[in-house]
């Protein structure tokens, strides 16, 4: 199993003010670069960076290609993942995406992971005029054509439902041939099965148990073998899921330093993906204050037990059955990789046994201190990561067995 870091660039407002310190955004980005540089030195395999727009406090990461380009010049081996690039053409013209991905691949010496998606928050969809009911169709069309732009000279042109352009040679071309590994954001189980059928990696932005991961892995590889029609030229058979990371000497310290950030991550995510998020008042609503003012036992029940996502109150102890609600619920709970190195190791072994390819960590979340994030990355990288690296060859053999008979070209970094 491989490991990555995941960045939203969370930036909670100060509790007692509605504006940030003037240097706050500058600081959070510089700190993130320091964290990525450390992760690279320790042997982390990936950094994935989101693209979100207008989601104040939750994500100040609207130009991931710029951040990843900066990271490329401070790192040597870590792979640079878009997690994800928004593909509906009203966000980004497919030719511009192809140009940026290729350029990043060149300046990073071929380290790009091309994650794609379409977003789901009303703030973003509404902000760019993307109809919710057509976003997946837009994603499919734009992604398919974008890959062609990276691989065909010239690109023969296209007239589709959502964009069109005349024949042009879209340059530069990526260093990785035929193109960087392709991924799609899979917040819902259904999309993981879409990924398999299109030969894409599944970036599971949900929090899953090892048992669920195991079931998904099996179904995913069945579909890759039996029903795959690649959207690109090469397939990237791979599954990644998300977890929180707060790794300290003791469980107690890890929870103390990691809990609030994880809860804020879940809370602010739930906020923007609920009807309340659609009513968000730009530059006015202080989400962090709402979060802090919510009794701690209710924070997992997004918005203080008002019932968003069917939580039915924050003190709910029974795990929700619904997939999305469950993901949010779990994100707010202690668990995942919040604990001592032993706790984290034991947790991850279960995912390794489930044949998961990549575990991506949310280390920077909420108001976590930079030095704590660095400590946590360092402790994981020195006390947990090495043994998983030593065992990765076994996973490679398992993957080879799963892909036996698959005749499509493969470009995967797993």
């Amino acid at each position: 199993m491989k490991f990555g870091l995941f960045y939203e660039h969370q930036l909670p407002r100060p509790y007692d003010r509605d504006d940030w310190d003037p240097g706050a955004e500058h600081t959070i980005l510089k700190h993130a670069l320091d964290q990525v540089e450390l992760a690279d030195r320790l042997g982390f395999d990936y950094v994935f960076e989101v693209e979100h727009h207008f989601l104040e406090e939750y994500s100040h990461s609207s130009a991931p290609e710029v951040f990843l380009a900066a990271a490329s010049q401070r790192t040597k081996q870590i792979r640079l993942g878009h997690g994800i690039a928004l593909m509906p053409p009203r966000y980004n013209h497919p030719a511009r995406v192809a140009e940026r991905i290729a350029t990043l691949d060149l300046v990073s010496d071929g380290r790009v992971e091309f994650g794609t998606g379409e977003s789901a928050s009303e703030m973003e969809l509404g902000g760019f005029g993307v109809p919710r009911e057509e976003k997946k169709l837009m994603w499919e069309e734009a992604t398919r054509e974008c890959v062609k732009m990276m691989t065909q000279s010239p690109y023969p042109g296209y007239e589709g439902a959502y964009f069109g352009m005349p024949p042009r040679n879209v340059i530069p071309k990526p260093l990785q041939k035929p193109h960087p590994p392709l991924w799609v954001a899979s917040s819902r189980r259904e999309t993981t099965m879409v990924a398999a059928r299109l030969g894409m990696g599944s970036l599971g932005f949900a929090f899953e148990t090892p048992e669920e991961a195991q079931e998904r892995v099996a179904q995913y590889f069945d579909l890759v073998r039996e029903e795959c029609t690649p959207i690109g030229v090469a397939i990237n058979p791979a599954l990644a899921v998300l977890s929180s990371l707060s790794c300290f000497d003791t469980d107690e310290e890890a929870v103390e330093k990691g809990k609030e950030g994880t809860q804020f991550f879940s809370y602010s995510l739930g906020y923007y993906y609920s009807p309340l998020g659609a009513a968000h008042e730009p530059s006015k609503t202080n989400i962090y204050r709402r979060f802090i003012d919510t009794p701690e036992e209710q924070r997992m029940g997004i918005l203080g037990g008002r019932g968003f996502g069917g939580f039915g109150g924050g003190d709910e102890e029974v795990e929700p059955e619904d997939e999305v609600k469950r993901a949010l619920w779990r994100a707010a709970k202690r668990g995942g990789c919040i604990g001592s190195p032993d706790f984290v190791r034991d947790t991850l072994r279960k995912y390794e046994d489930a044949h998961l390819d990549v575990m991506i960590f949310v280390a920077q979340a909420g108001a976590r201190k930079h030095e704590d994030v660095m400590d946590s990355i360092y402790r994981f990288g020195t006390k947990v990561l090495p043994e998983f690296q030593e065992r990765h060859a076994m996973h490679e053999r398992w993957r080879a067995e799963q892909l036996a008979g698959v005749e499509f070209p493969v470009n995967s970094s797993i």
Partner: protein
Amino acid sequence: MAKVDRIQDERLRSSMEAAHSSLRAGDHRDVVQRAGEAYIELLRRKPELLQGDGFQRQMRIFMFPRLGAHLEVEGGIPVRVVFDRDHFGFTEAVTYYEFAVDNLVREGL
């Protein structure tokens, strides 16, 4: 074993197998229709899924993908699939298909 084989109800399994054939044949509208009808049938046979507070009921309906088709609700109960358009992409059809199969299997039908 394909997940659709785990659907116990013969009629529902047969319908979802037909949906799978339509998926491969490119008849995406048929996939959406069958998936929607299967989900409605699930909620009809398991009315307890629509019990609880109003929000829980709403979520059962809300979770049905809204990618060009939605469920028409009468008296709080979904009764038919309504098409907002007739053309569906491959990924949209897969999304509806997998949603239906997953829910049928999970609920033991």
